[in-house]
């Protein structure tokens, strides 16, 4: 069994928070029928992953990774660099999803997935 160590938990609060935010986003994506809210949930989820990733590279009291002084501990720059790419990807996915939702709104007059399904069922 995992024994609960509060000090350890506090030291790793970054990760805990990131997971909580991830679950919030996941929950919003799965339970809300409003498509805009789904996309917001998607963004919250991805932001949580980015926070998690950046927290991995963080070193308590570490300096920026500019290699000119000796004997200083640096923050790991790799996760930040990766997440920069991740943010770009997430922005483009969001933009594309929103543009599709705009089109759907023009067709159906609503952004609610349940209402769209209802309209479609009545058409058939």
């Amino acid at each position, binding site marked *: 069994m995992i024994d609960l160590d509060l000090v350890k938990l506090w030291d790793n609060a970054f990760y805990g928070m990131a997971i909580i935010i991830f679950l919030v986003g996941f929950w919003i994506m799965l339970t809300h029928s409003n498509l805009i809210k*789904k996309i917001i949930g998607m963004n919250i989820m991805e932001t949580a992953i980015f926070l998690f990733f950046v927290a991995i590279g963080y070193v308590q009291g570490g300096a920026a990774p500019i290699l000119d002084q000796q004997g200083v501990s640096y923050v790991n720059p790799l996760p930040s660099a990766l997440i920069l790419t991740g943010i770009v990807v997430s922005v483009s996915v969001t933009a594309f999803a929103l543009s*599709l939702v705009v089109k759907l709104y023009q067709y159906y007059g609503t952004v609610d997935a349940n209402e769209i399904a209802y309209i479609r069922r009545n058409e058939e």
Partner: protein
Amino acid sequence: MITQHLPALIILVPLVSAFIILLLGPNYVRFARHTAMAASVVLTVFALLLLLETTQDGTIRYYFGGWQPPWGIELYIDRMTGFFLAIVSSINLLVLVFAAGVLEQEIRERVVAHYYALFLILTTSLLGIAASNDLFNIFVFLEISSVSAAALVAVNGNRYAMEAGVKYLILSTLGSGSVLLAIANIYMVTGYLNLTYIAEALPAAFAQYPLNIVASLGLIMVGLTVKAALYPLHIWLPDAHGSAPTTSSAVLSGLVVKVYIIVFIKFLFRIFPVDFIEIFPIQPNLLVMSTFGILMGSILAIRQTDIKKMLAYSTVAQVGYIFLGLGVLTPNAVIGSMLHILNHAIMKTILFLSAGCIIKLTGIREVNRLEGVGRVYPLPMAAFSLGALAMIGIPPLNGFVSKWYLGLGALDADQPFFVLIILVSSFLNGLYYLPIVIRSFFGREPRFSEIKVLPIGARFTLTALAVAIVVFGLFSALPVGYLEPAVEQLFAG
């Protein structure tokens, strides 16, 4: 000189051509088509060269920009990857040949040039996912593939396609989000993103932080099975593949779903050693999900009236087959899975393309109204029938061979129950494919106001795929001979 850079070129050629097409804008449709075609021909040649090279030298490693791993990005082409690269590039070429003359009738003229660009970007991402040996690089390609695939669904412009596109995009982002979190966990405990280095560092990391590894395994499992549409997580697939334009459906069903299985294989074999997987309940989960997938996919397909939706549900069942092989995890079963990736790519492409032709020529989408169509339009209907028979698993055709190996693998693992599942599912396949075949050839001949002619490209592609079905059925020793060492390589780690 240039052959040394083949692994990088295979990703760069389609990417650069896509951007050239986009730069010129939507008015240069002919130029776009020729560029896309030329890029695909070059790509296919490169992929086949790589395939040959893997048979001689085994694994090809390529360091991007000359940076050595673990710092630089590495492309790693083993036999399994080479196999998949060849499938992707050749199916891609055949579908593009088909598209000439058919595509213009299906989507608005303004977007045809952009469609070719999107198509090439999707191909880039598929090849990149398969070839890359760097986890973050794989994630970026995964996202490129979800965006471009959703765009290829929604490009139709009609509202069903739009809706399917949104659904597909949201669910596949959910999948890639899970995969990214898994990658974060793996990076956190091992400190590497390169698969080879992770595999070395993993046992020590597992002793110290077992929970992270377990969490990442779970997340990978969920993320990739959502994207590959394994049964309870398949809900996006029928809408997306059913409402997309013909050529998109063919590629989405034939190739895109498979690439996530390739990533899954990479995770299973390259990162986690086989004895390691056995500690976790991955195999039992896969077996349960794929068994339900095989049965439910076929049962749901029987209930469909729309021919493209029916084919889409059949894909759910076939994805189940491929995962079944990975769940059984004996060498023969994995060979069966890999073979089914090839064979299903050919079969589903020919089925979707010929169904698209039939819809185009007759305007009929309903399965039970296809009576006598085969007499008026013999070529597309014959192609459809051949694909359908191969799907059921009639012996000399290719679908039989992969089912045979899956069955052998299940027997090796002492699990004859799954042989029964395969047999039952073949029967169910027959139940929804055979009536169409019989009705369309032996039914009353319908009267159409005009008889349309298929473009030459479409006829060529259908014939080529039909030949491929027979060739890979009769000469199945060819792919099997290639795959046996490939699977040995995988099991060796």
